[in-house]
């Protein structure tokens, strides 16, 4: 059957089009619209169609970009960083082990201040077994390297994020990754509205910036002695300070142009009777919103920008709505005996407010997260009145055959 998933993007999109696509193709479409000069990525499940889709558009002639095949993810990120440093608008994409293989080169994209964009189709790291399914690998290890990180709940959001990432990268001169949950969003067909090309062009204009060039030669990434390194780091840190403001402004500009208004943190039903809210990111937020149609005594805080983390905004929300308890749900663990990575972020952000919380590790390696998890987490949280003992637990895991861990009923 002759289906060309990227067909809509083969010609100029003149007005908003309602269509339905999987998350990966939607991203490929949005990236096409941002008119990149270089696309360089290595295929890995569940990211593959995003790059395949782009190769289709380049091959068809619609996109005049260099589509570069490389031998690994380390090569992909190295090539992409360098291409971006010489002035090309550059896109790459990866997941899981590919993201780990990129690790060596990830900090330099930040250090060189290149506005690179990268899609992550979130997938588990392999340990102790291989899994191609969804976990939040992007919240682990590499999340502290300085990349801006936006997390999307559904196909529309991930399509929009591909455009927002270019805006945020160009305006902040920091690389930006945008994340959707592997398979759950990358391979699900949902309806979405495409933005006309003209609007995307206006949102993502080319801006003059520092580049590697022959007129002004220099050594990029050369060695420095202890008399310089720390100044270099402080320089980056200070440059990071306005990034949240830049993200906020980009969201506003995007909202004005498209009618879809995003915030760094979105809230649902926080004015509830139990003064309790879930806090999480990504596709699970949708599951909770649906579940909340029958559970009106609880709220939801959805984090859209994970790095830099909008901690003041979160504090303001928790104070304004007088939230007493937070149920943190996350699809990653840390094995540090303390807290998993997303929860550590929330705990640090809320330390001054002393908000009660518990962290639930759910949905690792693609396990479905359903109303069962939400019901139990809510019930368990109702019993919590202090911050003593272990603050996290795995939920939805078999202890023994026919016995669920930590759930009595």
């Amino acid at each position, binding site marked *: *059957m*002759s*289906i*060309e998933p990227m*067909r809509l993007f083969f010609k100029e999109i003149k007005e908003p089009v309602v*269509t*339905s696509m999987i998350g990966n193709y939607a991203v490929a479409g949005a990236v096409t619209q941002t008119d990149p000069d270089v696309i360089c990525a290595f295929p890995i499940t569940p990211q593959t169609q995003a790059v395949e889709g782009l190769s289709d558009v380049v091959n068809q002639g619609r996109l005049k970009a260099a589509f570069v095949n490389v031998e690994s993810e380390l090569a992909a990120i190295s090539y992409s960083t360098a291409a971006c440093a010489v002035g090309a608008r550059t896109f790459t994409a990866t997941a899981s082990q590919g993201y780990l293989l990129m690790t060596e080169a990830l900090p330099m994209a930040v250090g060189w201040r290149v506005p690179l964009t990268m899609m992550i189709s979130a997938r588990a790291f392999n340990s*102790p*077994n291989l899994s*191609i*399914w969804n976990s939040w690998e992007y919240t682990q290890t590499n999340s502290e390297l300085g990349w801006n990180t936006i997390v999307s*709940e*559904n196909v529309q959001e991930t399509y929009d994020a591909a455009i927002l990432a270019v805006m945020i990268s160009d305006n902040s001169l920091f690389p930006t990754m945008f994340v959707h*949950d592997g*398979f*759950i*969003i990358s*391979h*699900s*067909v*949902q*309806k979405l509205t495409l933005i006309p090309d003209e609007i995307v062009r206006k949102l993502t204009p080319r801006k003059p910036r520092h580049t590697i060039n022959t007129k002004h030669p220099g050594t990029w990434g050369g060695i420095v002695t202890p008399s310089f390194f720390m100044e270099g780091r402080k320089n980056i840190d200070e440059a990071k300070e306005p990034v949240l403001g830049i993200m906020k402004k980009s969201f506003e500009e995007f909202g004005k142009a498209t009618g879809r208004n995003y915030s760094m943190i979105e809230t649902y039903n926080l004015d509830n009777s139990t003064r309790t809210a879930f806090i999480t990111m990504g*596709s*699970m*937020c*949708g*599951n909770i*919103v*649906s*579940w*909340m*149609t029958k559970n009106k005594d609880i709220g939801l805080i959805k984090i859209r920008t994970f790095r830099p983390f909008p901690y003041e905004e979160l504090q303001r929300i928790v104070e304004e709505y007088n939230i007493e308890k937070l149920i943190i749900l996350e699809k990653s663990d840390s094995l540090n005996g303390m807290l998993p990575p997303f929860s550590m972020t929330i705990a640090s952000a809320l330390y001054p407010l002393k908000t009660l919380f518990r962290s639930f590790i759910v949905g690792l390696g*693609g*396990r*479905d*997260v*359903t*109303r*069962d998890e939400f019901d139990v987490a809510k019930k368990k949280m109702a019993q919590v009145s202090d911050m003593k003992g272990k603050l996290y637990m795995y939920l*939805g*895991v*078999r*202890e*023994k*055959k*026919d*016995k*669920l*861990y930590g*759930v009595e009923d």
Partner: protein
Amino acid sequence: MLTPEKIKEVLKDNTINLRFHARGGQGGVTASNLCVEAFYGYGICQPRFGAERMGSPTESYVRLSANANLIRSNEQVYSPHFVSVLDPSLLGEIDVTAGLPKGGWLIVNTTLDQISIQETVKRKDINVATIDATRIALDVLGRNITNTIILGALIRVSYIFTLDELADAIMRRFVGQIAGKNIEAIKQAIEETCVYDIGVDPDFTIDNKVRWQQVDLDLPGYKELDLAGVWYCDEEVIPVGSDQVNTGSWGEWDVIWDEEKCTDCAQCWYICPDFAIVRKKGDDGLWHMAGIDSFHCKSCLNCLEICPVDAIDKRLKQGPAACAVPEDQEGGN
């Protein structure tokens, strides 16, 4: 009896869930995509996540509602109201009525009658619709692709969307002549669907999901796993190992071995990707070819190609398992 008005009313505050059973390559996912595109309200479609291979059993899910908040969930569909089976050979292999409530609809591409279908799936409390989609596909499309045709049967019993709405979606998705032919086939399917209504409608307000079913409680727990996560070959700790997957059902051919012609050269044994060539140690202490393991043979035909003495032959699977059509029959019936 469902009516268009009743379905519209249901969709206001409930979801209607669909599940499609097919084999890799038959277009089950495309069928579910088309449902989302044809439906006037909000919809989401997910394949069962994993690696799909040609001929392997696949599932895809659709959730539809006029209420946007109900469709925001990315949970998989556990409780479908309408189940469509594109390949009748799946009836004996997969529990196609899992989660289907009393009064739910089972739509099957088959020439069998209602009683046989009910007996095969062991459910008498469900409605059944049958359609000989394979014949329509061969007649109209000239190829055994039944994924759009089964949607005709779905329109006939569900009223979730109309023929016009589906035709629109198909025109957007398919290029050229193929779109028109598919629409023609769907029209024929709507007329030819045999409907066996037991007089009970599904209760759309109840969700049949079994608590914690996503956790597969019948499998070993974390305390029972090996310390390094190793799946040792000599233990039966993990009951879902790949050697227990019936890859034999994926293929379209029966592979036949001729003992007379075979010279025991073992080239087929080396080339078989699934260890489906069986050898046994003879009285002479040497290994001899002993047959083909049809539970695992997915009929890639590598053995047939490599055999130097034509000792391996193929035969199209008979009956409902013949899910694909050999090239020399394409376009005919």
